[in-house]
Structure formats: C-alpha cells, structure tokens
C-alpha cells in the first residue's frame, strides 16, 4: 500500500543505505524503517480497551480497520506529557508472531527522512539510556546527531501479541 510513496523517493545512497523516518520523543531522535510506515496522522480520540497495559491507549477506526494505538513514552517508561499540536500517530506495519499487524504509535513529533548508510551505524552499547536495548537495532550518526534506529517488530510485535497482560495493570 504505502510502498508506492517511498519507492519514488530519491534514494541517492548506495545499496547498503536505508531510509528512515525519524521522530522526536523526549528530546531524542528515533528512526523507523520507512518501508514499514503506512501513514502519519494527527492524534484523535481513541476507544479504551480494558485489561491492557497503560501504554495501550486504545483503538481507532482506520478506514474500517480497528487499529490499536500505543503511547511510546509510556512504552519506554518516560514521563508523560499533554498531547499537543505536534503530537502525531505513526501508523506502522509490524510482523508479530501471528502475522502482520497494523499499529499506531504516538510520538511527540515527526522529524525527517534520512538515508542511513550501513557504514554509519554502530551497534548499541550494552547500557542504552531509557530504552531497553533489545528494541534498538543500531545507533547512527547523521549530521553530527545521533539517531536511535528502532526494531519495531521487537518493540511492538512483542508488546501487542505475545506479552501476557496482568489484569488491572492499568489501574
């Protein structure tokens, strides 16, 4: 569906370069593989789902499909903020243990699209700030900035399908 959007984009890098959509979260810049991004939409009211962890904000209607919305700040255990005008939902397609899922993640703001060369990436150090290292695919340096490249399959696929949800965790 969304691949049409990206295949036409200018991919000036070498074969080993990949495009990443980056977004801001608590002052840090994170990147997700742009081929996984289906669309970006503004924050809208969600329908709450009982018996789910607090980072599952609820579900929305995305053109007839019921899509869960996750709050990445809560997922990373960061301090929560009021949703403002830059708050957006990035709708991504993730592979879970039970097939492909469409999921929306709430982030502070979208930032840029970067070509990231494989040579510019470094594996994350063992201790990596506020994000559990398993979700971090690599760190990249672009224009003297650090990008945190996320493995969304691990980050989201796990949390929506495989994780056992303790009842009343939201309370």
């Amino acid at each position, binding site marked *: 569906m969304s691949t049409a959007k990206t295949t036409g984009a200018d991919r000036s890098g070498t074969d080993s370069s990949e495009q990443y959509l980056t977004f801001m979260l608590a002052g840090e810049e994170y990147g997700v593989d742009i081929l996984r991004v289906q669309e970006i939409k503004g924050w809208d009211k969600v329908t709450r789902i009982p018996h789910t962890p607090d980072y599952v904000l609820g579900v929305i209607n995305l053109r*007839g499909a019921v899509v869960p919305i996750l709050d990445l700040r809560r997922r990373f255990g960061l301090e929560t903020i009021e949703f403002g005008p830059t708050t957006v939902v990035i709708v991504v397609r993730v592979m879970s243990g039970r097939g492909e899922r469409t999921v929306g993640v709430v982030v502070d703001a979208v930032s840029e699209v970067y070509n990231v060369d494989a040579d510019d990436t470094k594996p994350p150090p063992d201790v990596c700030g506020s994000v559990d290292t398993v979700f971090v695919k690599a760190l990249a340096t672009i224009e003297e900035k650090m990008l945190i490249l996320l493995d969304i399959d691990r980050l989201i696929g796990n949390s929506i399908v495989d994780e056992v949800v303790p009842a009343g965790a*939201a309370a």
Partner: protein
Amino acid sequence: MTIDPEMAEIVKVFFQESREGLDAMESGLLGLGATADTENINTIFRAAHSIKGGSATFGFAEVAAFTHGVETLLDEMRNGVRPVTSEAVQTLLQACDCLREMIAATEAEQPLDQGRIATLNSDITHILGERPNEAPAPASSAANHGAGPAAPKPGTAAAAEQPTGWRIVFEPVAELLRLRNEPTRMFAELERLGTFAAQADVSRLPALDALDPESCYLSWTLEVSGQIPRPKLDEIFDWVDSHCRLEFTPTGGSAAVAPQAAVQAVPQAVAPSAAPAAEAKAAVPAEAERSPAAVSAPVQKAAAESGSIRVATEKVDGIINLVGELLITQSMLSGFADGIDPDDLDRLRQGLSQLARNTRELQESVMQIRMLPISFAFNRFPRIVHDLSRKLGKKVELKLSGEGTELDKTVLEKISDPLVHLVRNALDHGLEIPDRRVATGKQETGTLELAAFHEGGNIIIEVRDDGAGLNKTKILQKARERGLVAADQELTDEQIDNLIFMPGFSTADQISDVSGRGVGMDVVRRNINDLGGHVQISSKEGLGSTIRIRLPLTLAILDGQLVRVGKEVYIISLLAIVETIQVPRERVNKLVGRTEVFRLREEYLPVVKLCDQFGVEPDSRSAEDGLLVVVEADGKRAGVLVDDLLAQQQVVIKSLESNFKSVSGIAGATILGDGTVALIIDVPGLIRSVINSAGAISAHAA
C-alpha cells in the same frame, strides 16, 4: 491426452461442475415418484449428458463410458420407453455415488475402483437388457452442415398445429473462433434434436487477400424441426451468447413466443489462447476437438439455475468494509450540514438523504452476497433419509419447507453437520417401524419435516417428526442414575426433554451405528451455541418431537444494544438480553460483603459492574442508580450494571485480534456512525468470569 497448465483451470471447473451435476441428478432421482415427471428426468438426463460430454472432451474415457450407460438408461426413461422403477432409481443413485468417486479419483489421479464400476455397469446393462432398446433414433440430417454455403433447406414440412421447429439466426462476432468456440459442434448438437439444416450467409466474406484466417465472417440461418423446448436451444448457445447475435423464431403452429431480442454482451474473458481453434484457411470452422466451451455449458446451466456466481469471500469482505466506510462518511457529512448557509441547506439535506438511502441499500445488497439459501444444507437430506429409512426398515416421508430462507455462508456451513445429526436421530429414535405405527393407530409412513423461516431477525430451523416422542420417565430415570439430576429434584416436562442435550446422555437401549452413543446432542448444542444460537426440544409422548434451532442470520452483523458507562459506549448483543430493569435498593444484597446480587422474581442474580470489570469511571456505582441489563448465556443469567441505554442498531462485527489480541470480556469491536470504535461485550465470557470470581470468594470464605 495430457493437460497443459492452461487447460488445468478449465478441467478444474469441469470437476466442480460435474459434482454440481451429480447433486442435481441425485436430487432429481430422489424426486422421481411412481410417475415419470418429464421435466425432472430431463434435468437428470442433461446433467448426465454434460458429464459424459465433458469427460470425453478432457479424455477421461472411463468416466465417459460409464456415464454413457447411465445416459442410455435415462434417455429411455425420458422417451417413455422404459418405466421408472424403484430398482432403476436405486441403481442410478448408486451410479451417482460411483461417478462421484470416479471423478474424485480422476481429479486426485488415483486409480479407479474397477470392481465397483464393473458391478454397476452390469446392473445397468441388466436393466437395459430387460426389454429391447427401442429408443427412437433421432432423425438425422444432411451431414455437410455448417461448412457449405448453401446447405439443403428442408422447408418446414412438418409445420402443423403446434410449434414444431425453430429458425435461429446466428451471427457470431469475428472473434468467435479465437475465443475457442466451435460452431460446427453446436450444429452437431442441434442435429441431435431433430431435422437440421443450416444456411450460411457469406456476404461478409472479404476478398481472399484481406481475409484473416482466424476470424469468423460467416453467419447462419439455422432451421431445426421437431418438438424442441426452448431451453434446449438456449443450452446449446449458452456459451456463445455473449459473442453473437441470436434470434429464435418458432416455426409452424402457434408462434406465441416473441422473437428473442438480440443478445449482445461484453465478450467474456475466455483466455484468448495462442492456439486458435480454427486452422482453416477460409474461415471454415475445422473439426477441433479442443472446444470445451460448448460441452461444459449445459452443466453450468443445469447446476446454476438460480444464476449464482462464485466469489472469493475475501473480496466480498473487502466490499463490506468499504461500504461500511461509505456509511460513516455519509453520517459525518450529515453532521456538517447542520452549520451551513440556510439557502443551500435544503438541497444539501436532500442530497444527503439520498446518499443515505443509497448507501444503506448498497450495504444491504452487499451483505446479501454472503447469504445463501438454506437449501444448500437441506439438499443432502432427501438422500440421507432415503438411504437411512431403507436401512432401518422404516417408511418416511420427508417434507422440506422454507428452503429459500437465506442465511450467512459461515453459519450455513457450520449448521449442516448438527442438522444431519438431528435428522439421523429423529429417524433412528423418533420414528417407529411401520408395524408399530399401525399398531398405535398412526399412518404407516412417518413424516419428518424440516422447516426454515425467519423470526424477528433470527432464522429458525425446525426438525419435526411424528414419531414416538421422548420417553420422559426413562429420561428422568437415566438422568438420576447418572447423577445429572438430584433424586429429589422436580423438573418440568420441558426441562426433562432438554436433558438429552446434556453430555453423555443416551436413552437408546442399543447402540446402533446410526446413533445412540450419547455423544451427539451435547455436541449439537455446543455447535449451535458457538454460532450464537440456541436449541430446544419439545416433545409429546406418542405424537412426536420438535427440535427448534434459533440462529443469528449472520456472524458478520449483530443486532446490538448500545449502552453507556461513564464516557464509554459498549454494545451488548440483543440476543443475549432478557430484559432491562431498574432495581430498588431493598432488592440488592451483598454476599460476603463483595459480590452483589439482586432478586428478580424467584431468582437471585449476580450484578456485574462494567465499571469495575473494564476500569472506567461510571456516573454511579450503586445498582439502584443505574440500569440492570439482564443477560443470559449458557443457561446462566446475570445483571449487567450500566449508566444508560442508548440506541439499538445493527453493527458490523470487527475482530480485535486482526491487529491486536483478544481481550477478556470483549467479543470484538465495531465502528459506530460517528466513526469511533465501540467494543462488543462478550456476554458468556463476562458471566463466566463473574461466576468464577464468586466461586473464588466463597472458597476464601470457607
């Protein structure tokens, strides 16, 4: 003959259509009474004929040879040369079974069961040998049909009082041959029907150097005489009628039938193959053996009298989604209309109401695609009843009614097996053997009725027999023996009857291979409950039993009651709701300080607080301020506390699991008119969780 990949698809269709043809034959044969109903025999014959033709075309010689014998027998019956005897019908039914196996074996490229084929073949030959074969040979005609520019034209000599022939104007499009159609084959078919003559119109034929050898420049005026029903002609031209102009005129006698209007349609996407059907030079159709079209057409006609299409379910679901979305857009637009310039408002409102009507109609008709008549499930019963009553030595008349009642494909598929079980049960346990029936003053032949009808948004299927009915004393005794009912417990007649749905219950004295193992009725009930349905039996001793199944029309749509708890809106299936009440404080009590119960007439029911279950902030936490929706599932009741009742509406059920995971207490989600998502409450799950937690509490207290 080897099957190239291109043909494989067509061959697959042939197998599919052959099965449908066999189904048609079977139901036709079962419908044959003592008197031969010509139309019925014709249907059976056509089906057999199509299978024979198709299998010969595709090189399945054994199938073709076997069907030939069947066809010969049917042909004699059709022509009234041979009476329709029950032995012959029985043999033909077995031949159907055998053919079905042969087709399955051929499709799976397995060896055929030669022994069985030989036995049946000799049976058929035996029947055929009983009297000299005196089938009237169809009048033959000039052999040089089709090709000659001016075939002999035998005037309508036989033209008498009644329509004794047809004149057919057949003007194919130039692509006819490229689309793998073969006029000469059709002419050969016509020739079988009676005296046949063709006159070719060569006026469109271009000069030799401008001639495209693969195009068809000819058109024909065909004359065929004999008493031929119109449908037979339609069959022959069925495959090509979108590639030509056809005009049928009856000749001789009362020409009541108006000439058929020109049939012209978008050419079908019959794969234009690289190999053209005709390698002839002068557009003269060659005798090409690879024209499957003309042969398989009659099968399609016979099987699809209702004009059905095969559509992948995913495609339909895709359309359903889109239509739902359209509906939402429309209701959003209606919302906007409230704040616009008053001058334009009327026209806008008018347009919107039209849009609303159109979208609703569109949704309804799209939903209809998933609906199939219940005859798909009922059709197998004549055969089952026929075979089983023979085996059990019982005389049974099967009555079907409401076969046209439609229900969702998924529901239909899942209800077939439980129905078979119920019918077998009724035959085995319900209906008595003829002697017993006569002794009790009943008709020798028992009646088994299958009826389907709509009732208040549900479909009801009833299985009725006029047999012995349930033996209540025996059932109660068995139930007490097995500890299903306490020794001192008093039950109503209805409760006793419904004990047969308990697991491990059978009152049959002897276990037969038909039924009696006691693993049936509970499975039947579970299957029906899984479909969101309900089953009940009522019985009068000596007069018979009626089993009543209530099912939702579809699993995709639900009649829902919207309820509000705080700011959240949830949906409860109307089927699960018994009533909604306001309870005064004095009728609410707390058990061991935690679980609240309330008294509804003679019963104490637990109160389920949605606010606590789902962790939402309600208007009020006390039962007397809100409304209690009394729900029932699996025979257990509970009162669900909500703040308010909103509208009732049909909702399209969406799975939460497709992008998320299943959540306890939630059966699914739906999208409301304003585009927001609302959750559908899983009533059985909710009741279970309350009863479990109540159990846990009493365990703690003990």
